[in-house]
């Protein structure tokens, strides 16, 4: 993961400091990835702590993937997809919403801070919203601190 962050190093110091939080973002191909793209071409600045994974639909995201991310020590997981009603596959994000509802409760029951997960609907026209989401979510995960499941940093 360090490597990925380094590769995206841009003008300012990209690749968060080793002690800063790392966030995994699942972005849907049709809306949120395009929203992220719009944020990029609009030169909107947001924290560099996020690694994106583009998926065809948030409905394809198995809860196992989110659990796996936490297992590997990620500090926060963001899922962003089309607004309800705008899904490219009609109702794929319905499944995301329902699974997320149960997953967040299971994580909370197991003692993983719900501040570490977020579900957002970001359309392809919402570059500014994407910036806001990443900025506020990074702040929120920073407030939660490094994941208790993370291997000790600096290895």
């Amino acid at each position, binding site marked *: 993961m360090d490597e990925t962050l380094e590769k995206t190093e841009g003008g300012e110091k990209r690749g968060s400091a080793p002690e800063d939080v790392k966030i995994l973002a699942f972005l849907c191909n049709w809306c949120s990835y395009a929203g992220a793209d719009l944020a990029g071409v609009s030169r909107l600045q947001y924290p560099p702590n996020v690694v994106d994974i583009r998926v065809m639909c948030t409905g394809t995201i198995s809860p*196992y993937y989110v*659990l796996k991310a936490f297992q590997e020590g990620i500090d926060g997981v963001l899922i962003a997809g089309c607004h309800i009603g705008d899904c490219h596959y009609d109702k794929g994000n319905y499944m995301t919403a329902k699974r997320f509802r149960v997953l967040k409760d*299971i994580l909370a029951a197991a*003692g993983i801070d719900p501040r570490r997960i977020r*579900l957002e609907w970001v359309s392809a026209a919402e570059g500014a919203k994407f910036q806001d989401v990443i900025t506020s979510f990074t702040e929120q995960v920073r407030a939660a601190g490094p994941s208790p*499941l993370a291997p000790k940093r600096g290895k």
Partner: protein
Amino acid sequence: MKEELQEALREALESGKARAAVVFTERDGELVPRLVTSPDDPALDSIYEGDRRYPTASFAMMVLPLIDGKLALPVRECDRRMLVELDKYNQVDPDRLLLVGVPCSQEVADACGCAHPSPPEEITVVGPLAEPAEASPLPEAVAEDPAERLAFWMDSFSKCIRCMGCRNICPMCFCEECALDDPDLVGADSKPPEIPIFHLIRAFDMADRCIDCGMCESICPAEIPLRQLYRLARASVKDAFGYEPGLDAGELSPLGELGTPADLGGMDEGFRSG
């Protein structure tokens, strides 16, 4: 109760209502299911009468493809609710089952913390009914503080030896391919599993299926409070969607259907916390 059950099974075989019947007997201290096809089978005379449980629904799933016609099956109420749930996943055909309800004794119902110990009136019931027991409370160690909660579960999960007993005894775990066999998810199978993912994967899958029979917890050699974990997962599904597995045969799991925006468990605006 024993005589009533014998009578019910004999009658089912004699009248031809059922092609075969399942009889539980005891051998070398183990509960052994037998398939009998004749009302004169001596196994019917040595029917087990006691408090021990067996994953009857799994046995029915295994036997049904091997026989023609109906199977007479003695079931506890938890077994019956499993069969209701398995029908929703097309794993058993309820029309091929002739259920004989065997009510649990009050002692067993209380020990299990069972909310539904008595079979419904629709099926033949042998023996006296028990009152619903109060559910046992969550273990005290599962505290308000998330860090303490995580510590409690990690301590429990760290005892797991990956015997797969919880999965293998569970009739609801019928998938041919299992995420818990995937080394990418839970680690190579020569080692103890990665935690907490191993147990949380199962918790997620149990959230809309588990009927709270508690066999997983009773078989776990590491005494992990699995039933409590799955209860928390079930509570989420009940809270969000008002759905409880095993109760209504006509109602499918909300996680298995697309539904409408009103069914999204309050997530139609996304989820932010903190």
